[in-house]
């Protein structure tokens, strides 16, 4: 084992990149959950985003188009969830699970002729000129645009939820849909929009994995990142800034165990690969002790005449 093979600057840079898909997906899910919708289909929307982004990026040669397509793909699949839960009043847990199973199948079907292809590369990030500054330059400025977009999303979601009228309405719908309805807000419309936003974010996160992190297409490549994102929203007690913290923590663990595998630590690879999931469980246990404040109507179905 040779731990000196791990360069701390590169490691931190890679941790930030590893955190980005989780961050994007979790931010989207946070918005949906604040509106009172529990969408367990994050994994499915991510993998659809991953495959849509990959296909479009390969065919157009532009990763940017790929990411747009990924957002549309993720939102498209979330529309199915919105229809099931908002129009036909189906159980949210079952619908979300269905979305994940369906998404995994559909993505495998769509991507079967794309296995083993290399996607076009992103090119240098927006601040790459500054990344030559020793140590901090690489960590702070050496990333691609999506990393900064993720940060921007968190800030925007935080500001919107806390300081705008739209955010207030969204939270009202999530806390008490009957009261929000009585005040004349369109509960279903707000929730549908929140679901779509969640889907688009998950799609972006998925495409980040297939276009930048890996970069390749393989079946089931999101490997539970969507579920970790879901856990992260609980971890964050439905607060955007804590999502950021959590994403970096989990991204860090994922990357660290990969680096430890590479450095040949005496722990078997499989046990290292388990670690992000085990840590997620441990963290969930610690956080469930403080009775965190979930949105009041999370997971409950709303029907006006009911």
């Amino acid at each position: 084992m040779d731990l000196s093979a791990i360069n701390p600057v590169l490691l931190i840079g890679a941790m930030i990149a590893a955190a980005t898909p989780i961050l994007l997906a979790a931010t989207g899910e946070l918005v949906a959950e604040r509106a009172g919708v529990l969408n367990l289909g994050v994994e499915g929307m991510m993998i659809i985003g991953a495959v849509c982004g990959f296909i479009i990026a390969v065919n157009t040669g532009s990763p940017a188009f790929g990411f747009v397509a990924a957002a549309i793909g993720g939102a498209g699949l979330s529309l199915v969830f919105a229809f099931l839960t908002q129009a036909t009043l189906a159980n949210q847990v079952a619908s979300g699970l269905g979305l994940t199973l369906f998404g995994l199948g559909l993505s495998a079907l769509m991507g079967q002729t794309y296995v083993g292809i290399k996607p076009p590369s992103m090119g240098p990030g927006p601040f790459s000129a500054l990344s030559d500054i020793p140590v901090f330059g690489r960590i702070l400025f050496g990333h691609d645009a999506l990393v900064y977009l993720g940060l921007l999303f968190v800030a925007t979601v935080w500001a919107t939820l806390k300081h705008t009228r739209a955010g207030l309405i969204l939270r009202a719908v999530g806390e008490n849909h009957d009261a929000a309805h009585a005040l004349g807000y369109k509960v279903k419309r707000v929730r549908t929009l929140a679901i779509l936003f969640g889907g688009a974010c998950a799609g972006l996160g998925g495409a980040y994995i297939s276009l930048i992190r890996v970069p390749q297409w393989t079946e089931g490549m999101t490997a539970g990142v969507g579920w970790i994102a879901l856990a992260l929203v609980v971890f964050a007690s439905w607060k955007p800034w804590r999502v950021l913290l959590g994403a970096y923590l989990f991204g860090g663990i994922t990357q660290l165990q990969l680096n430890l595998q590479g450095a040949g630590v005496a722990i078997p690879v499989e046990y290292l690969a388990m670690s992000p999931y085990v840590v997620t469980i441990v963290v969930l246990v610690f956080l469930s002790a403080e009775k965190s404040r979930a949105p009041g109507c999370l997971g409950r179905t709303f029907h006006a005449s009911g």
Partner: protein
Amino acid sequence: MIRLEKRPEPSRTMSYATPLLAVLATMVFGGFLFAFLGKDPIEAIITIFWDPLFGEFAFFYRPQLLVKAAPLILIAVGLALGFKAGIWNIGAEGQYIVGAICGAGVGLAFYPLESWVIFPLMALAGAFGGWAWAMIPAFLRVKFGTNEILVSLMLVYVAEQLLASMALGAMRNPEGRGFPGSRNLSQYESAHNAELIAGTGMHWGVVAALISVIFAYVLLTRHRLGFAIRVTGEAPRAARFGGVNPGRLILFCLGLSGLLAGLAGMLEVSGPAGQITIDFNVGYGFTAIIVAFLGRLNPLGILFAGLLMALTYIGGDIAQSQLGLPAAAIQVFQGMLLFFLLALDLFTNYRLGFGREAAA
């Protein structure tokens, strides 16, 4: 103007009709999907739903129906009890894997000793493994209030890594010339879950599945515990006032579903799969969720739903080899089935009202 009216009571007719309507809708939309993939939709549907039962080679496929349906039914029956009470174990796949590892582990430990006690011991170990794996989310939920959905699912990924480690390490066949995977249990008589009646596909898993259906049916309709499960699902507060201990119910439902999933895993690995390999599990734990809903969370319904889902697996395999239909298309097909079921379920509790709402 069309609007939704809540029915005073859920419609019994619709609750029986929705699974059938959902299957029909899936056939139609699945047909579109197959046509889009460049296959003849009618031929594909016939290949999937008709050929395994009545086609030229049906004598070969019919036994497979039982082999594939048994684990699905066994897992789904356990899941349905929990789902009814609002306890969401979605990590059955993990419990299935751990059950298989424990069961196979006991069998491999006795190799090459031949004795009739080995198989029952393996079954006990498998059931125990699944139970223990499910007790992790159950215990955490009861003790700390941790979300059982997320924990049980995370444990699937942990179990998959554990399986990989077993197949490549501790349980690897010492005479396997370095190939990953354990000894083949089907060549070890005392540990083999063989066909009970040759040529029927009837193995111990099928027996266990039938027993579990009867057990769950009696539990739900005739036993106090079944009543507690139903009340908790429909009115948790009323259940609590009625003296139901929610913690105990969680431990029971998660434990039982884990036990059945573990047993299914052990019976699969000692029978149809034969050995512990990295990917001997094929997602029955997840498909069983669809089976549970398709069967209306009712044990008898699950019996039929399991057979139907097994049919799509077998038909899918045939369509794959004969028509070149991709394997993933069947997964999409199964996902669609769940969607249609959930959407059509609306009409069990609601009906369409026409005209203006009567003045209240």
